[in-house]
């Protein structure tokens, strides 16, 4: 009984640890993926990330042309979903609790890139975006 409790406790600890992550670790994760996707990849670029965040696209869904449709134009500020729910800031400087789970980050990139760009983002775009958020 005692040993099974210990096993479950260790499993929980391991599972929690697996998802406990920070922004730097996420950026490293996408750098590895970007190198695999693109042989000439050198590094992430803050300006490219900023541009991706602010740019309006016509390839996605018409109600969400840009990240800034729901997130504030200034990522240090709160945003609002189209249904009126507050979105906490994207910038790590004003929201240090963000970017703690790769699973969650991947879920939102998948959905929101499809909504805004009409396709999934590649690893370079994800890394650029996160680099912008790290420095905002």
């Amino acid at each position, binding site marked *: 009984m005692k040993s099974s409790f210990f096993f479950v406790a260790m499993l929980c600890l391991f599972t929690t640890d697996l998802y406990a992550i920070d922004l730097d670790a996420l950026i490293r994760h996408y750098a590895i993926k970007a190198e695999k996707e693109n042989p000439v990849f050198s590094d992430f670029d803050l300006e490219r990330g900023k541009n991706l965040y602010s740019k309006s696209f016509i390839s996605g*869904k018409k109600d969400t042309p840009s990240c800034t449709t729901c997130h504030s134009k200034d990522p240090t500020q709160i945003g609002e979903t*189209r*249904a009126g729910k507050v979105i906490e800031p994207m910038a790590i400087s004003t929201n240090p609790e963000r970017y703690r789970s790769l699973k969650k980050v991947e879920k939102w990139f*998948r959905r929101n890139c*499809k909504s805004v760009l009409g396709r999934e983002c590649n690893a370079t775009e994800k890394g650029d975006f996160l680099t912008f958020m790290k420095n905002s």
Partner: protein
Amino acid sequence: MLFLSCALLAAYACADKNHVGVINDPETKEECGGCHFAFPSTMLPTASWLEIMQNLDNHFGEDASLDVRTNQHITNYLTSSPERSEDPIFGFTDGIQEKKSPIRITETPYWIGKHFHISEEQLESGLAGLKARCTVCHLRAESGIFRYE
């Protein structure tokens, strides 16, 4: 006597027509409530929830898709949560034909009947997406109470 009063009060609270209920499943609450007010499962018939959950990649103009396991879990909750069978008072699903099941709660005859005195302009003006924001007028909606306050 005190016990009887409490019992009567409790019975009254249960029968309160303004107490619609809340989403009790943490995963459903987190996923639905991430973008909008987590509408109680009693507000739409099963056919509507199935239609919504099968088309999350285009959810009112946005991609809100979920992994298969989460989708299945939430679908099960929305269509067979205990609150749905324990809620004989409400008429949200009354008058809805299965083949014409709306995916917007604001298109159910019950919702329209309850809000007929408010003009479309009033509903849509002032705060963006007001129709979807129950909490603007129903201050205790997060607790499942939909009295106009």
